């Protein structure tokens, strides 16, 4: 029994995957669980494993090609099995393959599971003597709905297609009432009347499509195709700045004592070295444990306050930003946080993070201090309700309590808050706690 190999959803937010490299050639024997290919998801490079045994008969996608989740990318079967029928329906994402890749059983991918997308037998191929007695031509109107592919290209009459493009409707977003789900004139009219056409889009201007096709440097500029991670960043951040009413709280902390502590620890040997970032992460996590109203998720119709602190730390990679998570950061010792943050940052740069390692954060920290940014505002990573932007530590003249002027190490942090969940005073109280922690680092062991 042949097994279809689909592009699987290897991360919770994955919509398409780029097949970076096939690790098996056509004709190679494969066992269940063998890694067939490397796939770049929106976050990382993952492994696509075989869900059946036999011989990799066919590779339907080339190295480097990106296809939507659910697309047939290959076929595993016996050496001499006829797989032509399976391949005939390739390139059409099958709805059933999309959501939970993990739980799918090999049999589910068996060839019979999907309707054969081959067109229904055309009347022309039947010998004339077998033509139905009715003299009405059995034209394609008679094609039963089930014989047509359930997904893929939106079926539509030429008129519907024209009307849709004129009014900027997305045909795929309209459910057709004609045979086999064909979108016809009345469906377009209904969509326009009710405004239910969720798929409003700009009429295709030649520019978008052709511009991409001709990617490459042309003197004054360079077109860089969007990587999957870049697309995800754009989508997520636009989602954030749009609907989230954000406000910003900035505070300047004194790091003299933290700096003394760090120096004292470093003097004890390399084993005890911690960075300012580790101190800040630890302090933030500890402060969050005391302020569950900030350690929360905005979930549209309710706010979820988390009792555990899973601290996301933004890491810059060559491809863009990713936020690995230090789970239960408030319960971890500073040395553990120091080790873990280093490991996570390294994995992030190598794109080896697993989805479990970058999802589930309850609050995030972004640090640009090492780039000599004095102060900045970070964009909230939804559904979180806050993010802390850490600036550079600088020597500044400060007027001390006794009136004298001293040069001290100072740090500016800015907290972005989702006002729907966190009010100004709530955020400010959190920053007060954080200040107490950072300015008196002994509090961290209290």
């Amino acid at each position, binding site marked *: 029994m042949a097994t279809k190999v689909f592009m699987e959803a290897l991360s919770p937010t994955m919509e398409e995957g780029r097949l970076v490299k096939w690790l098996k050639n056509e004709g190679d024997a494969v066992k269940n669980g063998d890694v067939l290919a490397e796939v770049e998801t929106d976050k990382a490079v993952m492994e696509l494993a075989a869900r059946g045994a036999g011989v990799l008969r066919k590779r339907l996608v080339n190295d480097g090609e990106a296809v939507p989740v659910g697309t047939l990318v290959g076929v595993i079967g016996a050496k001499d099995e006829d797989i032509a029928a399976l391949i005939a329906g390739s390139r059409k994402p099958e709805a059933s393959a999309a959501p939970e890749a993990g739980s799918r059983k090999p049999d589910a991918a068996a060839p019979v599971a999907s309707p054969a997308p081959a067109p229904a037998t055309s009347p022309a191929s039947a010998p*004339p003597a077998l*033509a139905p*007695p*009715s*003299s*009405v*031509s059995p*034209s*394609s*109107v008679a094609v039963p709905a089930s014989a047509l592919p359930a997904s893929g290209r939106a079926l539509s*009459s*030429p*008129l*519907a*297609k*024209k009307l849709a493009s004129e009014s900027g409707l997305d045909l795929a977003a309209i459910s057709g*009432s*004609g*045979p086999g789900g064909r979108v*016809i*004139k*009345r469906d377009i009219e209904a969509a326009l009347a009710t405004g239910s056409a969720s798929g409003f889009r700009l009429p295709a201007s030649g520019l978008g499509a052709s511009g991409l096709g001709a990617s490459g440097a042309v003197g004054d500029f360079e077109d860089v195709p969007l990587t999957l991670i870049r697309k995800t960043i754009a989508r997520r951040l636009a989602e954030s700045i749009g609907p989230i009413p954000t406000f910003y709280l900035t505070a300047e902390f004194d790091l003299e004592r933290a700096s003394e502590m760090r120096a004292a620890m470093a003097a004890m040997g390399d084993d005890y070295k911690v960075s300012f970032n580790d101190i800040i992460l630890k302090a933030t996590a500890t402060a969050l444990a005391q302020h569950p109203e900030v350690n929360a998720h905005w979930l549209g119709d309710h706010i979820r306050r988390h009792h555990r602190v899973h601290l996301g730390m933004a890491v810059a990679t060559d491809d863009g930003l990713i936020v690995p998570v230090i789970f239960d950061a408030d319960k971890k010792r500073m040395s553990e946080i120091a080790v873990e943050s280093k490991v996570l940052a390294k994995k992030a740069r190598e794109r080896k993070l697993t989805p479990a390692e970058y999802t589930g954060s309850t609050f995030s920290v972004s640090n640009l201090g090492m780039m000599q940014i004095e102060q900045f505002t970070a964009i909230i990573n939804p559904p979180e309700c806050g993010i802390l932007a850490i600036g550079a530590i600088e020597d500044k003249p400060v007027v001390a309590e006794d009136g004298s002027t001293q040069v001290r190490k100072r740090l500016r942090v800015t907290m972005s808050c989702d006002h729907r969940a966190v009010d100004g005073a709530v955020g400010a109280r959190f920053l007060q706690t954080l200040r107490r922690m950072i300015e008196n680092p002994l509090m961290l062991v209290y």
Partner: protein
Amino acid sequence: MVLVAMQAADQLAKEGIKIDVVDLRTIRPMDVDAITTSVKKTNRAVVLEEGWEICGIGAQIVDYIQRDCFDHLDAPVIRVHQADTPMPYAKALERAAKPDLPKTIAAVKKVMYIEA
């Protein structure tokens, strides 16, 4: 066949379906403009002819329609014609083989996407 077409138009008018009947009268010259003007107005067509399906004049008419009105079609063009068999001698069979009112009405409903 014009008679059948007019009867179909009358009967369907009672159901609220308004039909253009284009009576070609000649096939050479063929009044293609009259056909395409009507199809562009209604977005669909049924071609009715007393003749065989294969190599029929109706096939040529459908060809003109798909060529000139492609973007205006909301349904496949359907033909109503004589059965694909030598014309039977028995009167009853002859009647059954020829295009008639019920077949025409069924075809119109099909291009209107109305369940018969």
